[in-house]
């Protein structure tokens, strides 16, 4: 009896949490007429939605996809490159004490809209609105905090003895960081990098505010589908399916580091 109750509750949980994903993927393969007629059963499947989403010249989906890819990759690379030294410095020297850590963490916590309006105006003045460069610069700042804290918690787990031994052997601090700590933090770098990629790919507020047509990201394009082609449900579903694919795969890939990453290292998974 108790077993049955557990199985039933898990079924209900999966319907609620996984059902929407199944529905959207399913819808993306159903054809236009069947969707509009509200025909849920019977065989009405095709790849038309995907074909249209990718190849219809009226849509900017492919552009959004490429932009998202460029912005996410560029942001991730730079964020990791500048966050690793910072994380190392915070982990080993407590640079800046509580003040610097608190400042970095508060950027992770403060609502991004607080920075959005002045950034919109400033980027406009610098002629950087609707450019990939402008968007990347903004994303850098809002993703450094997460990367710094995740990397810091990974570095803090490496015994200091190893580094001290290297220093005794005549390595400089920077050599230690590069040749001892960096290789030992590989897992952390992968986790922080993937989390950053997911965050940038998923970002919507700045993308909507700071892009217009050239630098639109996939989320912006997908939400434009809803307003401009609101009746083409199958295509909306196809756009959403393609858009969620990379981040879902990445999330499952770093599942083991997820808890640590999401709590910035405060909780060990």
């Amino acid at each position, binding site marked *: 009896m108790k077993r049955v109750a557990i199985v039933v509750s898990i079924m209900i949980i999966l319907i609620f949490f996984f059902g929407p994903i199944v529905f959207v993927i399913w819808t993306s393969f159903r054809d236009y007429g069947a969707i509009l007629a*509200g025909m849920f059963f019977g065989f009405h499947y095709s790849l038309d939605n995907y074909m249209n989403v990718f190849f219809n010249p009226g849509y900017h989906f492919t552009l959004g996809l490429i932009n998202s890819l460029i912005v996410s990759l560029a942001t991730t690379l730079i964020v990791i490159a500048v966050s690793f030294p910072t994380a190392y410095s915070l982990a080993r020297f407590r640079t800046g004490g509580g003040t610097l850590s608190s400042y970095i963490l508060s950027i992770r916590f403060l*609502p991004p809209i607080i920075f959005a*309006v002045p*950034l*919109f105006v400033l980027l406009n003045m610098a002629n950087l609105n609707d450019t990939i460069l402008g968007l990347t610069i903004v994303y850098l700042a809002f993703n450094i905090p997460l990367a710094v804290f995740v990397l810091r918690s990974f570095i803090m787990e490496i015994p200091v003895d190893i580094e001290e031994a290297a220093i005794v052997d005549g390595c400089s601090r920077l*050599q230690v960081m590069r040749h001892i700590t960096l290789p030992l933090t590989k897992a952390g770098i992968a986790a922080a990098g993937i989390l950053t990629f997911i965050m940038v790919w998923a970002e*919507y507020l700045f993308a909507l505010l700071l892009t217009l047509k050239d630098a639109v990201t996939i989320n912006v394009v997908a939400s434009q589908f809803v307003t401009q082609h609101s009746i083409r449900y199958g295509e909306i579903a196809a756009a959403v399916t393609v858009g969620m694919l990379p981040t879902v795969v990445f*999330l499952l890939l770093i599942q083991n580091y997820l808890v640590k990453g999401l709590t910035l290292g405060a909780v060990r998974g």
Partner: protein
Amino acid sequence: MPSRRSSNSSRRANPPKLSFPLSDRAIPKLLVIPALAILLGVTIYPLLFAYYMSVHDMTIVNFWNPRFIELRNYIEIISRSDFWYSIRFSIFFMIIVTVIEFAVGLGMAVLLDRPMRGKRAIISMILIPMGIAPALFGIMMKLMLNEFVGIVPYLLKQLGITYNFFRDFTSSLITLIWVDVIQWTPFIFIIIYASLQALPRDPIEAAIVDGASRWQVFRYVTFPMLRRTILIVIIFRIMDALKTFDTIYVMTGGGPGISTTTLSVYIFKLALILGDYGLAAAATIIFLYLAMVVVSFALRFLRREEVI
């Protein structure tokens, strides 16, 4: 700044013996400079600029020559009832989703904290909503709840129920809470679940041997051991719930009327749709102080728990 950095790199090229004591003192500070420069440039500078904007009449029309108007933007914004409404709605939404997500997430973590077949697959499926961009997730849910093509209204109709998920304030609010709960309960679930799995088994088994009921074990043994994790997860969730923008913007656009407008949606609309950047900046500054209150509580707690 460039001169300091170049002197560092030349120092690195020097034989380590000579440069060692000096560089070791400077290096920790030099290492944080690139990240700090980006952070200051993209956060502090715009905030200072927001103060400037907030005391100027800066709209889409007179963008290039804003006029100094003292505190008139602030007076205007605090006299708007929809501004106060959006503050109240933001706080209300933040509290209600955090409470529901915590309760559901804790329940799910306890439910799955036992051996069962296919658990890894089940957990992966539960986590997936969290891995989807909130904007895309909102669109997805909007499709699923759509009165013409959505599967949920269709199934409800088979049961003889006609329900529009976006008809009025109440139905829209319930829909938005539902969507937020589906997307972010996995966050709370996975963190509590991981902590549960990492708990030492001895105290729990001792309590069971002493004849404690399942509920008593949870209430007096497990729960106290989870205290730190629970507080951390609630803090993270509260901070993120205060930001809520994406799902609401794509699903209801803050409507019907302004009934589901959070502060983020409100300020966004002031800037992008109304085109009044000065007014939006005044609202921004007020939101900054409001958020700082919550953030400083969070930071104080995290420091006490030695997270930072």
